[in-house]
C-alpha cells in the first residue's frame, strides 16, 4: 500500500484532508479493502486512546451489505431549485460529544472570540460545568456572548506586560527578545 495513501488516511481521520482528496480517498476505499482496513485500525487506535476500550468496528462486509440493500430502494431525483437552496445553505457545525476534545477546541475558538460580559448569576457557571461534565457524550460549554470589555491583544503595552509577568510566576508569556522586569540585576551564569 502506498505510504502516501496511508498518510492521507491519517489526515482524513483528523479532518485535515481537503475535500477533493477526501472524496478520492473514499472512492479508493470502496474498492481497496486494504485501505478500508487501515482506516479501521487507525480508528481503533484513536478510539482506544480516548476511551480506554476497544472500538466495536463495522464488519468488513458492512458497506457492501448496506449498498446491496440501498439498490432495492427508490432512487432520488430532487429538482434543481431545491438543490441550489441546499448548496447555498451554511451547515452548522455538529456539537462535539467528547468532553476532552471539546475543552481545547473551545480554547481555540475562545481565543479568537470576544470575551463574554460577566453574568451576575454564577449559577450559570454551575449549570454550564455540570452540563459539560464527565460522560463522553457530554455537551460542550455554552458559546460565549459578545463582550463589552475592551480586549487587549498581544503585545500589550510594556507596563501591562510587566504587571502580567509579576502577577504570574510561570514566565510562559515570554516572547523572543522579551525579558521581564528583574528584581535583582540581571547577570549571566555559566
Amino acid at each position: 500500500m502506498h505510504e502516501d495513501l496511508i498518510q492521507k488516511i491519517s489526515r482524513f481521520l483528523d479532518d485535515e484532508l481537503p475535500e477533493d482528496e477526501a472524496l478520492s480517498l473514499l472512492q479508493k476505499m470502496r474498492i481497496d479493502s486494504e485501505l478500508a482496513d487501515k482506516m479501521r485500525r487507525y480508528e481503533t487506535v484513536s478510539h482506544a486512546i480516548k476511551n480506554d476500550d476497544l472500538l466495536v468496528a463495522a464488519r468488513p462486509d458492512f458497506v457492501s451489505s448496506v449498498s446491496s440493500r440501498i439498490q432495492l430502494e427508490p432512487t432520488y431525483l430532487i429538482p434543481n431549485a431545491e438543490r441550489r437552496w441546499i448548496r447555498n445553505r451554511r451547515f452548522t457545525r455538529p456539537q462535539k460529544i467528547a468532553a476532552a476534545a471539546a475543552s481545547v477546541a473551545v480554547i481555540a475558538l475562545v481565543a479568537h472570540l470576544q470575551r463574554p460580559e460577566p453574568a451576575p448569576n454564577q449559577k450559570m457557571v454551575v449549570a454550564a460545568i455540570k452540563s459539560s461534565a464527565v460522560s463522553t457524550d457530554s455537551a460542550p460549554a455554552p458559546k460565549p456572548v459578545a463582550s463589552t470589555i475592551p480586549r487587549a491583544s498581544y503585545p500589550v503595552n510594556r507596563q501591562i506586560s510587566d504587571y502580567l509577568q509579576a502577577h504570574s510566576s510561570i514566565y510562559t508569556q515570554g516572547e523572543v527578545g522579551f525579558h521581564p522586569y528583574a528584581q535583582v540585576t540581571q547577570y549571566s551564569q555559566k
Partner: protein
Amino acid sequence: MTLVVRFILIFFFSTGSVFAEDNKLTARHILTNMIQALRTLNYEGTVVFWRNGRLETMKYFHAVDHGKEQERLVALNSPLREVVRNGDVVSCRYNDTQGVVFDHRPYERSFLVNFSRTLAELDDFYEFSLSGKEDVAMLPAYVIDIEPKDEFRYARRIWVEKLQFLPLKTAVYDASGALLEQVVFTEQHVKAALPFREAGPEAGQANTLAGQAIKDGNTGVLPFTVTDSPAGFRPIYFARKTMHDSHLPVDYLLMSDGLTSISVYKENKSPEMELGLRSVGATNYYSLSLGDYQITAMGEAPPEAVKSIVEGVRLNPPIVQKLQPK
C-alpha cells in the same frame, strides 16, 4: 502465571478496588490528597499551558527530598528558557542570553494549582463537588468542580488522577461557562526520585529579593491599603519592585482569597497608562488615577473583583517604611 491470566486479575482487581474506593471519596478528600501529593511526590511530564490567549508546551519536573522541594519548567518553544522554584524563590534562565531573573514568591506553592489556604477556610467562598470521572493523558481521573459562591470569583475544574492524586488538568471558566484558561498534562509519570537543579541567587543577592509576607491581614506600615475588598480577599504579600527599566519603584500588593489572586500595583502616573477596565485572556485589570499615582488591580477574577479592589485602595501617609526601597 500466564500473561492472559495476569491481565484478567489486574483488570478485575483494579476496577473492583477503584470502584469500592470511589464511593467513599468526596471532593474534599480528593483535593486534600492532591495537595499532599503535589508537595510530596516526585513526578514529571509534559504540560500545555493555555493562558491569556497563549499556548505553550513545557516539560515539568517536581523533585522532593527530605522535605526539600523543587519545581522546574523547561520550555519546548521559543524563547527557550527554564523556570525553577526553590522554596520562596523563582528563577528564570533564558537560553539565548544565559541571563537569569529571580523573583520572591513566598505565597505560591505550585506552578500547577495553588491553594494558599486550607479547604475549610475556602468553604466560605467556594463549593467543592465531585462531578464525575474522565480520562486525561490516558489516566483515569476524578473531576472536581470548584464553584464560586459570589460574583467575585471564577469557577474552576480540576481533574485529579485516581491513583496518585496528582492534578492532570485544570481549567478556569468565566461566569457564562466559557473556558478562560487551561493547564493540561499530555503525559505524567511518578518517579522514585528526580534530580535537583542548581538554581538560586548568590548569597549577597538573596536579601535584596525579599518582599514582605503579610500574616493574618496585618499590613503594618505600607504605602497603601485596600478597604472594602470582596469577602475573603486579604493582603498576603507586599514588595517594592523595579519595572519598565525605570528607576522609580512600583509598589506591589498581592490580595488573595486562597485560590484567586489579585495583584495591585501603585506607581507614578505615566503617559502610556490606560485607565478603566480591560482584559487579556483570562486576566481582567482595572486602572484608575489616585492623586499622583496610577493604581491597577489585575487577576484571573471577574471584573467586579478587580474593580472593587482598585476602588478600595487608600493611600497611607508617607512615613518611615519597614521595607526599604531598592
